[in-house]
């Protein structure tokens, strides 16, 4: 069976994937906002690291959404 078609058949995963990508964007927005809005070094660095952390969570969710899709059709 065609791998792409198998992916399309997995139910309910598009929302998870979309959520993961939105988290990636939110993490980046946090990084950029910290740069733009915070002048002091310490809070700026903390918020940048927090943004990177949000990106990591988003990346894990995007990866899981694709991995789960394989599990769904096996």
């Amino acid at each position, binding site marked *: 069976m*065609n791998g792409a078609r198998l992916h399309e058949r997995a139910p309910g995963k598009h929302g998870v994937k979309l959520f993961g990508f939105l988290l990636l*964007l939110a993490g980046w927005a946090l990084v950029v906002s910290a740069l733009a809005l915070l002048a002091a070094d310490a809070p700026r660095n903390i918020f940048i690291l927090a943004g990177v952390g949000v990106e990591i969570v988003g990346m894990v969710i995007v990866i899981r959404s*694709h991995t789960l899709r394989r599990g769904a059709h096996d």
Partner: protein
Amino acid sequence: MPTTSFSALDAPIVLAIALIFLVPCAAGGLALINTGLGRSRSAAHSMMASLCVIAIAALAYFVCGFSWQGFAGVTSHVASVSGKPWSWLGAGPFLFRHLPLDGSAASLAALLGIFSVGLAALIPLGSGSDRWRLGACCVSTAVFAGWTYPLFAHWAWGGGWLAQLGTNYGLGAGFVDCGGAGSIQAVGGLTALSIAWLLGARHGKYTHDGLPTAIPGHNGVLVMLGCSFALLGWLGLNSAGAILYNGVDPGQTVLVAVNTVLCAATAALTAAVITNVRFGKPDASLTANGWIGGLAASSGACAFVHPAEAATIGLIAGVLVTFSVEWFELHMSVDDPSGSVSAHAMGGLWGLLAVGIFGRVPAIGESGMPVSSAGGQWLAQLIGIATLVGFILPLTYGLNWMINRLSPQRVAAEGERQGMDLYELGAGAYPEFIVHSDEFLER
């Protein structure tokens, strides 16, 4: 008349042009690697697609790519954020208009860009090998070369907000990317990941139990020859990038070249040793991936590290690439025949991080003048990496998802069974070969 500091018949111009002329060797090398690691029944299609991708990337870059990438000191769209100027996008005219092609720094950047955008666009071709339709990869390349690549290249190389992190916020010298570890390798590698996700695995790659099966490349000689060409191209890419985008003295190309070779050498040997220890014999394709991963990692800091540090960067790249190839295939269900995601994305991102760890980059203070302390360089690099993963990956995935919705990018099942050569081109690369298609049997 030249418009910048480079004057006609200047030695740096001759050197820069000679170095830039080496860059197409890297593209040729990647084309050979992608073809060799794919199936024999898709070999002609792979080389044909490589030519088309390079051609379309050059045209798209000529039409609008370079104007959006821009060059430091050339007009751009600037937003004032909390009183600081943030350059978001180049604002030059399309079609190279008003760009004197006379050896000026901007014209050399355009020349380097027209080659390097083709190199970056070839990276996703490796992950979509054996199943990516020719028409679809051409459309995807046009979008990539006309928008995605120039956008990040402007931020990193064209005087954009990442490059301004030093002058605006005192973060070292701002985001540093000597030879394109981010602008070329990571952007191309993340696009390759998007393409692999969207296309799905090749037929027969995963069993019903979800375990990956080996679909070995059809020509190891092409792969190793491609690695040799790639080294030649990377020597030009890293050296020209360091001179043009980082203001490195032309005499330092010796250091850049030594670091590039050492980084690739240690990465390849590390991959060979790891596979030898784990599997009993060194694996040729993973060693080639290690070589390319080392080259990709070298592009970040090649002008700002000691050779011993470059060797260390390569060693870590070799470990990273070798294990990530297995991780992507086994645990992430990513069918990436050429290892493009591991070699280019992981290698490139590591190379960028290595600038912050090992690099001794002359820092620029908020006044715009060089300062002695390089503190904050790691943070500038981290912000660049966060931008690649947090913005460029969703962007390139979204653009390719839209293309896929308009017209499916994956070839029909019959095309995959016949082979891309016969299905899309009507003739095979090796007409005297007998193709065995036992991977289409149910497992």
